[in-house]
């Protein structure tokens, strides 16, 4: 917990810094409170689908794996749920289809990795290629328009002034936090990722758990697919392009160890927010694509460096404090 706060402090500093840059570069816009609050909602909304996907990814990575197929799963789920025949079943049918398809693909990943003993990188890379192919096949490479008003309302409705997308995002994030930190499932995830052999010898069914992690990632992709489809009022085989990189990067920037066994949901969400805030900032400042990319690379590096400095100095500080309180001048023993 303290660890999570400490880490996220670094990223919070980065977010504040980004806000500061915004104020400096566009004082008129950032000075306008209604614009600013709307902008925050926009950032959150843009972060919502990738955020949901990142929650699943964080579980997979903490559990010692990786899922390169998330973008492709979103595509195949999105496309499948927007075929004309699926759309005849209405919003319920579309949501069910997206989630069912995504979970099934996740389970296939899980079976290949847990029981087929494929390296996660390779198994999900193969799935990424195959699922994109399947999505193209299903859609005939066309952009499929979602004609369902209920689905499309997911991107536009704002109960209590808060966009539904943000509510979904918050719900998934909270559920993810509880699952990771307060349930036996989360505990198993940390164990399986931290030391699979130890987990196995402690009686945890490591294979089954691994499978469940990929299914969970699939589930998040299914939810993400619906969110994206609603936002774009359409789905196509190339949607959610390279989301895998974004999700992995967000998780890792948020302090999740790529080797597994350690990570936080809060950190991953901070990571997602940093990315979408950067994109927003670039747009507001009208940077060209190439400058945008160069600056983005530099910001990522800086963000991680700030986080490290933060983390390090705080650790030292806290250690000093603890030492002072805990070791009340030990009485020397002599020979």
């Amino acid at each position, binding site marked *: 917990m303290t660890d999570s706060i400490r880490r996220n402090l670094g990223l919070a500093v980065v977010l504040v810094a980004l806000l500061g840059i915004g104020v400096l570069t566009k004082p008129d816009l950032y000075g306008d409170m209604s614009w600013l609050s709307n902008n925050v909602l926009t950032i959150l909304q843009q972060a919502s689908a990738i955020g949901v996907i990142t929650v699943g990814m964080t579980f997979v990575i903490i559990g010692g794996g990786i899922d390169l197929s998330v973008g492709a799963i979103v595509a195949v789920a999105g496309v499948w749920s927007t075929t004309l025949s699926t759309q005849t079943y209405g919003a319920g049918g579309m949501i069910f289809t997206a989630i069912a398809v995504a979970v099934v693909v996740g389970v296939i990943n899980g079976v290949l990795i847990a029981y087929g003993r494929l390296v996660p990188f390779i198994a999900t890379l193969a799935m990424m290629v195959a699922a994109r192919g399947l999505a193209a096949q299903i859609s005939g490479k066309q952009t499929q328009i979602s004609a369902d008003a209920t689905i499309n309302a997911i991107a536009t409705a704002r109960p209590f002034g808060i966009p539904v997308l943000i509510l979904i995002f918050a719900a998934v994030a909270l559920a993810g936090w509880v699952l990771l930190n307060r*349930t*036996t499932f*989360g505990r198993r995830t940390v164990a399986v990722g931290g030391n699979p052999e130890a987990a196995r010898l402690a*009686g*945890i069914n490591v294979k089954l758990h691994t499978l469940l992690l990929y299914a969970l990632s699939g589930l998040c992709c299914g939810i993400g697919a619906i969110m994206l489809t609603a936002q774009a009022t359409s789905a196509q085989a190339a949607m959610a392009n390279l989301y895998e990189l974004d999700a992995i990067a967000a998780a890792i920037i948020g302090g999740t160890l790529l080797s597994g*066994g350690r990570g936080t949901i809060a950190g991953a969400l901070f990571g997602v927010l940093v990315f979408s805030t950067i994109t927003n900032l670039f747009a507001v400042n009208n940077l060209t694509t190439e400058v945008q990319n160069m600056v983005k690379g530099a910001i990522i590096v800086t963000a991680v460096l700030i986080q490290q400095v933060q983390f390090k100095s705080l650790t030292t500080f806290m250690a000093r404090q603890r*030492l002072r309180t805990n070791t009340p001048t030990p009485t020397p*023993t002599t020979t």
Partner: protein
Amino acid sequence: MTDANPAADQAAADQPVEPTIPAQAAAPADQVEAVAHEEAQIVLRLADIVKTFPGVRALDGVALTVRVGEVHCLLGQNGAGKSTLIKVLAGVHRPDSGHLEWLGQPASFSNPQEAMKAGIATIYQELDLVEDLSVAENIFLGHEPRTFGFVRRGVLAKRTTELLARLGHTELSPWRPVRSLTPAGKQVVSMARALSHDARLIIMDEPSAVLAHDEVDNLMRIVQELTAQGIAVVYITHRLDEIRRIGDRVTVLKDGRTTAADLPADTPTRELVSRMTGRSLEYVFPPRPEVPAERGPELLKVESLSRAGEFADVSLSVHGGEIVGITGLVGSGRSEVLETIFGARRAESGTVTMDGRRLRGGVPTAVRAGLGLAPEERKSQALLLEEPIYRNMTLATFTRFATAGITGIGKEKAAANDIADQLELRPRDTNRAVRTLSGGNQQKVVLGRWLLGGTRLLLLDEPTRGVDVGARAELYQVIRSLADSGVGVLLVSSEVPECLGLADRVLVMREGRLVHEAPADELDEDKVLDLVMGGM
């Protein structure tokens, strides 16, 4: 790809490292009188060394003096600071303050290389080998014989063979990957690496912990050869008998301080222990119950268990309240038997029954049936190093503390704290990451996991490896009282006295087969050793 000599490699691969018995047994240590130490030249002097880690003062003013050609033993409880001290010496850690004098000159080593160059070689407590490099490459890592960056493989092999011969291990091929070696084999490689430097001082941090009886003899012989050449050795161990055999003088650490320096090696055990622990303590086994064994019902029954390449036709049984010991050479297959009973390895033939019901569903079934395994290699098989102590202790039981899938962290902590008290874990704070614990304390965490209740048959693989004498006595006590409460215990130990002292019944294993079984009080150490070696 690395092999110049595939044929030799093949031959070596066909032959698991058998701890070989050195041709000439070393003369008993107590008869070899070392050089007159008092006047001998001092190679190393440490004073007032302080080293703190976040939240811990690991060294708090340590003093140590080492002389030419002596075996200087370092003694102390788990967490006393021994490993930290030698890491300071070896340039791994920078001390916060203190004086270091090397060969009469003030010195400070800012990295391992500087210490090595100065003539200090170290065998670390945690084996520090690269699994995918060969024996030769590991030994000469960082100082390979080379021309223009190209490894001189011929020279490398030759020098490796020489070093291994010096250690009495001619059977090890220089090109064999270290991954395929037994822990004992790896220890030999670490030793050869230390010898490969022209060292004036060799530090050994619990080198005997992973070794079996005959291997320890071999180690003693090597240490004596080294000192005879004037090389000084700092020797860390928890086995007091080793100090008697090869030690010249002893320095005792307690809580990061030197509590006794330069004691003679024959200082009575009672005094050593009280210097270490600050109290007097008898190093004894708890008394066996009046009526030995088979008091409870038969819990575990193993029939003709086999796995090709590991062990064959193993049959045994354990009753409630009974402690059954298995002893044998390293590599005789005891760990594999334990893991197979536990379901961690699939039995190729034979059956395991618990309470009359067959176990066949792997580890989860075994755990549900009440089995628990404390495995041999704590780091790779048992611990989540980055996780807090209490979570490591409850790793097998956290579901029991949970309600409807929601974990009961408070209850877990309370239970873990109880165990920490029982086992004298130090530091006692169970919120700390296991990584920051000393080796012996990590071992206690592994054992603690299965003491949390609910386990009715404990499988213990080398449970006291690296555990200090004080804690050892506590552990024996805990194990015995568990047995008294009806738990069955199957214990694997390479320390014959431990097996004989703690177990009710002893099984001897050799080359994958059980070759002997007898009540512990009908056996003595010599008899067991004979059986272990092959009935000579």
